[in-house]
């Protein structure tokens, strides 16, 4: 039922970003509204609840400067939509899809509701194509595949933006003739961070194949709720209608969740952990689950959400619930960063859950899984020995332990560490991996099959 587009001057209450309008008729849940002030200021809102003749409207730009007697509200009879077009590539938008660069306006090919519909699980195709990011800790140990959602768990002051930009720049598939795009969704980040991405995309020419959606830290928090939906709707259009392989970077999800908490508090909902609403999991999943592949279609959506963990605490609701939805996580480590290692990826707690189906013969290399397991376990053993040495002193270490400590140091400085513009092929990552394994006697390589030891163990 199309609502009668009627204007009301009956705003009765304003609390936080919410506005209560009375005496309305024909208003529906989720409908958009235009909110006009006498002086011409126009804002957007969305109906969060209708009860009889009362509608509760969330104002995207915030309610600052609004007075009940001073505004007219007009219900538009449709949900939040975005006009999409291939011409969006190379352009910068706000959270509603309005251009905010100096370019011309976009002539939409079609309009899409930003909430999207859930992908039918039966229509999904399993992600199994290796994406080479050129970063050893990801490619070899925490392999990213097309259609995966793999977040960066970071903390304030850590170089997650640099890593995300490097991934966006370098990500390729070991196949040619395919179309790529990057959709960049910035929520509540600082001007400097945002500028860093934009400049980086410009510098490398990646901007040509990118669509940027930007809401800065001083922008309206509520816009952060629509921004990732607008961005993902665009990504779906590019992926499934324009056959592109789309990498979506969502940063910073912690800001998004805070905006959600703000709305929830204004509605006086029963708060869950740390004041976040009980439906935070469901809400996040409606974003993250939009990653994927569809049977019979060429394109794909791969997501790299970035989030900063308050106090580096992985059990904080934002990383915790994200981890429950995404297919693994890459953890950025403060200690490694302090040691001057870039990218400071802590490989032990990091995990790509979809790695197994994207690696091996025909995809990367036959020995990939074995090398991965061996590097991982040798590094874990070295770290463990190091911890022991802290408690009991170096002298408590056996000869073997000392060897593994050496190994883990070399692993950090030669394998984990790499240049910000160093784009390693999977072959190169494997080569470095084998060089490091060469530090250990063959007998210690229990996770590598003998044939591969014969074939790849460095000759003295």
């Amino acid at each position, binding site marked *: 039922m199309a*609502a009668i587009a009627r204007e009301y001057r009956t705003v009765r209450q304003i609390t936080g970003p919410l506005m209560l309008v009375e005496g309305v008729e024909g208003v*529906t849940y989720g409908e958009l509204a235009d909110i006009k002030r006498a002086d011409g200021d126009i804002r957007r809102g969305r109906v*969060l609840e209708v*009860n009889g003749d009362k509608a509760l409207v969330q104002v995207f730009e915030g309610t600052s400067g609004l007075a009940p007697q001073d505004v007219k509200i007009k219900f538009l009879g449709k949900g939040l939509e975005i006009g999409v077009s291939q011409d969006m590539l190379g352009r910068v938008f706000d959270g509603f899809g309005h251009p905010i660069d100096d370019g011309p306006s976009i002539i939409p090919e079609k309009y899409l509701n930003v909430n999207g519909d859930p992908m039918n699980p*039966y229509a999904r195709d399993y992600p199994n194509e290796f994406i080479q990011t050129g970063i050893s800790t990801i490619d070899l140990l925490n392999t990213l595949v097309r259609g995966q959602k793999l977040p960066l768990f970071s903390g304030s002051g850590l170089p997650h933006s640099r890593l995300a930009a490097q991934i966006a720049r370098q990500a390729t598939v070991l196949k040619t003739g395919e179309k790529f795009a990057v959709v960049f969704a910035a929520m509540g980040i600082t001007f400097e961070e945002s500028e860093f991405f934009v400049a980086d995309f410009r510098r490398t020419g990646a901007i040509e194949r990118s669509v940027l959606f930007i809401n800065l830290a001083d922008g309206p928090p509520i816009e952060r709720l629509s921004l990732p939906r607008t961005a993902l709707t665009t990504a779906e259009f590019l992926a499934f209608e324009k056959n592109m392989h789309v990498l979506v970077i969502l940063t910073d999800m912690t800001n998004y969740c805070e905006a959600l908490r703000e709305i929830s508090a204004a509605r006086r909902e029963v708060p869950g952990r740390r004041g976040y609403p*009980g439906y935070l999991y469901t809400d996040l999943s409606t974003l993250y689950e939009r990653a994927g592949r569809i049977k019979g279609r060429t394109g794909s959506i791969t997501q790299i959400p970035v989030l900063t963990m308050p106090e580096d605490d992985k059990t904080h609701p934002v990383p915790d619930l994200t981890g*429950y939805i995404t297919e693994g996580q890459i953890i950025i480590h403060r200690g490694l960063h302090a040691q001057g290692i870039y990218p400071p990826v802590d490989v032990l707690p990091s995990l790509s859950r979809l790695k197994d189906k994207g690696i091996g013969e025909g995809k990367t290399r036959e020995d990939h899984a074995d090398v991965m397991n061996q590097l991982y376990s040798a590094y874990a053993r070295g770290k463990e020995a190091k911890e022991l040495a802290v408690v009991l002193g170096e002298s408590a270490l056996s000869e073997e332990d000392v060897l593994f400590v050496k190994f883990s140091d070399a692993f950090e400085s030669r394998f984990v560490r790499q240049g910000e513009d160093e784009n390693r092929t999977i072959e190169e990552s494997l080569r470095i991996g084998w060089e490091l394994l060469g530090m250990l006697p063959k007998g210690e390589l229990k996770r590598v099959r003998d044939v591969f030891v014969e074939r790849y163990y460095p000759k003295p």
Partner: protein
Amino acid sequence: MISTQGSVIKVSGPLVVARGLVGARMYEMVRVGEARLFGEIIEIRDDDYSIQVYEETEGIGPGQPVWRTGEPLSVELGPGLIRSIYDGVQRPLDALQRDFGDYVVRGAERPALDRDRQWSFAPAVRVGDEVVAGDVLGTVQESKLVLHKIMVPPGIVGKVVKIGALIGNVDTEVAVLEAPKGNVSITMVQRWPVRQSRPVARKLMPTLPLVTGQRVIDMFFPMAQGGTACVPGPFGSGKTVVQHQLAKWADARIIVYVGCGERGNEMTDVLMEFPHLKDPSSGEALMERTVLVANTSNMPVAAREASVFTGIAIAEYFRDMGYSVALMADSTSRWAEAMREISGRLEEMPGEEGYPAYLGSRIASFYERAGNVICLGSDQRPASVSIIGAVSPPGGDLSEPVVQATLRVVKVYWGLDDKLAFARHFPAVNWLTSYSLYQEIVDASADSQVAKDWSEIRTRAMTLLQQEAELEELVRLVGVDSLAADDRLLMHAARMIREDFLHQNAFDDRDTYTSLGKQYNLLSLILHYYDYARTALQGGASLDGLTKLAVLDEVARAKLIPEEARDQFDYLKERITGDIRALLPHT
């Protein structure tokens, strides 16, 4: 459909309040708005009917119509369930994809059982036979693994007045019964309200093991047919992999897998993998015994709440045929969160962490639908439903309400540990905190059928693991060098149990499933080594020599010995004996 029509007065997310639905009852299904969205009445106050809507409610507003259906949320039960994938309210996702595209759109509707499929019905009774509820009237070969029994529905008794072999779709009349209140026509399909458990003749204590092929489970924390188990653990600790492994390898006749508020790709994984995996006992594809219910996290939350009931009703129906059924629900926490969300919208008084006060009783009544039973029907056939629920506690904190409510009812607890998962010890089942109350049942069966010292070696191995944990404390304080040689040997043996027995790679073709016989061989091989090594240590052999024996590398790979090559274990045992003897100082 009943003609009474009400109208919407309030919409708040998945909750709609309507007025004017005179005569409507609790849990009756309604259709909401012009889009005819599915909904269910969950609260009645005067003339205000609160409805949880199973689809996105955007565009619904006051004044829009609401229709009664007169029926509670029900499932269709009949041939065609096997190999299906349904959403939380039993809409067939394959048919929706075929007819409505790659996204689940609102108002999309298709019958749960495909009316175009023809089934061949073979009668099992004759005209003139007296039958009661549960009696098998005939059978349909539903899949290679499932002989579907068409039963007299609950509540009906009578004399068969018409029956015969025929081919038809599920709506075809297969028999007519002369009942006290007149003739009853029986088709191949029954409808059943999901929130109500299907009746049985009687419930029994579980007596048979549910063999899973997972070593840590079968050996240390076994499951029983008709039992209940839970798998709590933080994210990434391996809950889903455990559930998938059980769905693949548990020796149940029917598997119902409920993906409740979890990832879409995990369902795709099952859909793509199961048709290619072979059931170890029959050699047929695992999909031939599987029903999937997939209400992923991004699908409507009210349908998620319904999904576990849809799953359990289907499971009970197959149980009624006399089968052992296992149901996996991943994750019950998402189900509880769906309840919490609806309860919040109803503005109910919240209990702990915002969950409704009835959380505990809902969880208990769900698990209570598991059980070992005697089915309805004159042949007194035994059957069972086992339930294995994953729990996803926020931050891995086990004190939270869903874990606690679950632990009060389930009998098996497989606690997954993130520390083990980080150390890539999979399955990350913590052997010090997990438990199974079905141990005796399984011991009795394994001691008589696998090896008479099954329970003995299990107890010994567990003792070693516990002693190892104590010694580890000590090592942390004083270093391994200060331990006596026999303690160090014990730690070595315990480590072998962990790495060579407990570690089980779900993604390795051979390691993914281990029969009970091979589990026994593997564990007794390690204990054999420990016994001989201990004696040799006393006899003067060096610890270093004992722990670095070359044959131990082969023991480490023994889990990959093919099922049929059992003699390799004997060979390894002999080598261990010989090699250890060679280490003894010559006298």
